[in-house]
């Protein structure tokens, strides 16, 4: 009986239903907790582009006190009725820049909560193997980079993955500027590593063995800075 075809088919079907049911139950039960972790990580990434977070810092408290988040359109106008957390960058990235919903995270000053100290913008693009994304913090002049935080889904460990794992690579962007006079030029990661770019405001040292990931980062920054260009021109101080 155990070898008959109908027994096998029924056995497989029951097994599938039981396993699928259990997994659906687990996924549903843990969803809230997982989403909380993902949100926390995003807040942490946004904050870490501008300040150094101590171990065990209350990220929620700092975030809600300091960060004002909203969404703008390509023209730089604030869009009402939609919050940054409702914007899926992976979806927006595929649209034409003019149609994108663009989240903005304003980082308020300690002394004057109405004064914007930094503006953190999300960026999204494609590296060598898979999506790359991150946050770029600009000073209130909306030109000078305060800090960046990159992440990736599948760049090569030890090579392209350094955009996330190597703080030194991310620190290279600090103090660079994205406008030349009033023309948007973005910041480009160059080919080759170990060169000095201190006097070149729009270039940073490259990553040896990861030129293509670097190109992906360059495209990502250029693409997203261009999307935010109208907003930047309207709001720079």
């Amino acid at each position, binding site marked *: 009986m*155990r*070898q008959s075809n109908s*027994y*096998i088919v029924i*056995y*497989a079907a029951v*097994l*599938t239903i039981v*396993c699928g049911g*259990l*997994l659906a139950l*687990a*996924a549903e039960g*843990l969803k809230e*907790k*997982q989403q909380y*972790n*993902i949100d*926390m*990580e995003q807040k942490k990434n946004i904050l870490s582009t501008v300040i150094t977070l101590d171990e065990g810092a209350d990220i929620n408290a700092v975030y809600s006190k300091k960060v004002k988040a909203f969404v703008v359109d390509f023209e730089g106008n604030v869009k009402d009725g939609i919050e940054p957390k409702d914007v899926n960058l992976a979806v927006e990235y595929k649209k034409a820049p003019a149609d994108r919903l663009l989240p903005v995270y304003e980082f308020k000053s300690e002394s004057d909560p109405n004064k914007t100290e930094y503006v953190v913008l999300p960026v999204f693009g494609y590296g060598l193997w898979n999506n790359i994304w991150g946050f770029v913090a600009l000073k209130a002049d909306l030109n000078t980079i305060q800090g960046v935080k990159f992440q990736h889904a599948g760049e090569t460990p*030890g090579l392209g993955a350094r955009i996330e794992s190597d703080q030194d690579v991310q620190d290279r962007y600090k103090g660079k500027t994205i406008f030349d006079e009033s023309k948007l030029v973005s910041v480009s990661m160059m080919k080759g590593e170990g060169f000095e770019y201190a006097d070149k405001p729009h270039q940073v040292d490259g990553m040896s063995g990861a030129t293509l990931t670097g190109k992906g980062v360059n495209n990502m920054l250029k693409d997203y800075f261009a999307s935010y260009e109208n907003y930047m021109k309207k709001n720079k101080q």
Partner: protein
Amino acid sequence: MSTEAVAVQEKKSEPLFSKANRKLISNPLDIDNPVTVQILGVCSALAVTTQMKPAFVMSLGLTIVTASSNVVISMMRNSIPSRIRIIVQLAVVSLWVILVDQLLKAYVYEVSKQLSVFVGLIITNCIVMGRLEAYAMGNKPWPSLLDGMGNGLGYGMILMTLAFFRELFGGGSLFGFKVFESMGVHYTGNGLMLLPAGACILLGIIIWIQRSINGYRESH
């Protein structure tokens, strides 16, 4: 009718921690170690051992998956049609692996990010499938549980040993605690220890030491 005869024999009750049962735990730690003797699960042993914490969580994950899959398959063993037994085993293993992965994502998110794809790859870890096919398909749940735990611990033991040396000499810390710094010694990490190649060399040395102690020889 031979199956019934075996079933009757099995019924002779045995103390929970009889000598044979204790061996199920202790053998995989030494003479029958899944990593150093059977050379299974090496891929993840090289990949997740740069630090103690992910190595520990990975060991725990694999132990839980192996032990629970062993028990479930052992309970189902008399009903599993032999023509689809591998796929049934796979389904049960996947179930546990996804559960573990979901739990990690919910409760230790940072660690789950470090382990990333390797938790999912427990499904293809030869240790798990090997124990199901070789042991749980023919034994009762209790010994299967012990066998699964034993093999998980044997794997974990090697992972922790590797991670101990790699984190200590590669980064100068243990479980993130800066050992050399706290002793006031300046230590520059050895980069080789952090690379998979360094882990491979280290694993080779561990295998050498263990085999020279327990006298294991490959049979030809």
